[in-house]
């Protein structure tokens, strides 16, 4: 037998779909934002983990976060660092962060001596050669794939400057686009400067001891172990967690309000039917239950649609803008619960109102 719930939903398909769309919107907001935050965080973490230097040396005021535009450290520090006992390699690096090519997110470019950097991190070229000229860059395989770039392709950096892709490297480590240190210094008009120096040790297990020695030899600078560098975007942006939680709350509110509005309208439309239920002897609990069941049924449709739209939108955005999306079961469960509980709670007030209607007035309702 068709239940009252499904019969009512079928009777007003547009209203049901609009309500479900409201729930789906909440689910989409949670899934897309958390998926993007997680994707970016994990992407950065993966790329950071491929950097094999144990220590990052920079100016005290400089940043060892993953995003920095400062190039205020003299490259001569690299030579000084090599004199410290235990240091195997010291590679100066400039990192430049700009807005993403298609207006979304951000893009990082790194200026580094390719041969030294590749040797330090165990990287190799899968196509082409390392950057030499001032207008040459190498890119990683993901960048090549996502942006459909190959050796010989051109890309715009620093606004309007054209650079030629001369090589494709693997594995991904740090920024996806790398040029020579000289090219970056030239572009930023910062001769003989760098953002920091990557320090590779002879014995990685003695990182703390060597760091202390560097601090003694070159005091007044910032020495940080790469393992301590915050690579988790949620932690490196302190209010991201608050933002995500606020977003989740707003999503629940949106779902709840849309369902409440829809169910409130439904109750008004079906006043007489509620009167009939009362005449048949339906208890308040039965009436509340039927309305909440209908809201939950609509919410389930909304949650399923929300997941489908989220995955589709994530896939399309990832392909169009190369923004990584990574969904987690926990956030998926949160989104589903928000959709279901938001819908059920939203229906509660109209349901209780319906259960309290006067039966005779309801039966006389036109």
């Amino acid at each position, binding site marked *: *037998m*068709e239940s*009252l719930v499904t*019969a*009512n939903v*079928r*009777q007003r398909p547009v209203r049901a779909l609009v309500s479900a769309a409201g729930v789906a919107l909440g689910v989409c907001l949670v899934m897309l934002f958390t998926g993007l935050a997680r994707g970016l965080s994990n992407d950065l973490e993966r790329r950071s983990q491929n950097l094999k230097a144990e220590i990052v040396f920079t100016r005290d005021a400089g940043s060892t976060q993953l995003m920095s535009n400062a190039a205020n450290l003299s490259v001569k520090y690299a030579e000084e660092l090599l004199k410290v006992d235990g240091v195997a390699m010291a590679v100066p690096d400039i990192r430049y962060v700009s807005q993403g090519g298609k207006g979304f997110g951000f893009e990082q470019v790194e200026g580094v001596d390719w041969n030294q950097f590749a040797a330090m991190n165990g990287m190799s070229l899968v196509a082409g050669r390392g950057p030499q000229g001032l207008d040459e860059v190498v890119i990683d395989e993901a960048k090549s794939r996502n942006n459909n770039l190959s050796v010989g392709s051109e890309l715009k950096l620093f606004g309007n400057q054209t650079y030629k892709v001369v090589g494709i490297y693997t594995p991904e480590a740090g920024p996806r686009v790398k040029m020579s240190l000289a090219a970056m210094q030239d572009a930023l008009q910062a001769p003989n400067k760098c953002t920091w120096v990557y320090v590779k040790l002879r014995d990685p297990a003695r990182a703390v001891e060597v760091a202390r020695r560097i601090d003694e030899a070159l005091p007044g600078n910032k020495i940080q172990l790469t393992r301590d560098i915050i690579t988790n975007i949620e932690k490196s942006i302190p209010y991201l967690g608050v933002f995500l939680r606020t977003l989740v709350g707003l999503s629940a509110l949106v779902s709840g309000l849309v369902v409440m509005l829809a169910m409130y309208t439904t109750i008004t439309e079906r006043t*007489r*039917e509620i*009167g*009939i*239920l*009362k*005449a*048949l*002897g*339906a*208890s*308040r609990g*039965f009436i509340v239950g039927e309305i909440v069941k209908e809201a939950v049924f609509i919410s389930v449709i909304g949650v399923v649609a929300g997941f489908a739209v989220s995955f589709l939108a994530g896939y399309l955005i990832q392909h169009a803008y190369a923004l990584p999306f990574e969904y987690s079961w926990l956030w998926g469960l949160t989104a589903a619960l928000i959709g279901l509980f938001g819908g059920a709670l939203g229906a509660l007030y109209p349901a209780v109102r319906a259960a309290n209607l006067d*039966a*005779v007035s309801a*039966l006389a309702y036109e």
Partner: protein
Amino acid sequence: MRTILQAENLTKVYRVGSVDVPALRGVSLDVEEGEYLAIMGPSGCGKSTMLHLLGGLLTPTTGRILIDGEDLTAATDAKRTDIRRRKIGFVFQRFNLFPTLTAEGNLKLAEGIHGGSDGKKGGDPERRREVLRLLQLEDKMHHKPLELSGGEQQRVALARAVVNRPAIILADEPTGNLDTENSAIVLNMFQEMNYRFNQTIIMITHNPEAAAMCRRIIQMRDGQIVAPGPRVQI
């Protein structure tokens, strides 16, 4: 014969703004099990108010109603709903079927509500079949109300009212929206229910022919019973 319904000195006063409007002015009524009773009277005489009081949809201002031994007036709202669920079946002038459900769906909904606390959600299929056969609705069960004629809709409403074997059926002008032919069919069905199942029926009607089929007719005027007719033994 056992008294199945007892109403003692019922009054009902509606408050309209700051004015008290008396609808019932001391009505007493005894109805025996298996009785088929018609209540007649001009519009506004308090017939519907009385029916709603007897069905527990309204509470009297004063007086007492006993249904099958249970005091409706002393009961809480939840208890009154429970008594209504177990003891009363309603048939309305406007049929009041659920338009989104089929005829069968309407019956099953009533069974579901009735079985709510008894754990008999599926209802009694045997009883349902018997009622459907009697009301000649077997081939209409998968139709929605809008696909049925007025007479058929009222037969479904009657089937819904009797399917749970209520102690009393309260019918509020059940032929008021029907043409002569369908009125006759529905009234015959009421009579059949009364004969076959010894079903107690209290029916409000303006139609003298409908009233003539009942075993007793009472006349109301100005919130009072003015002519408590004699019972006819059949």
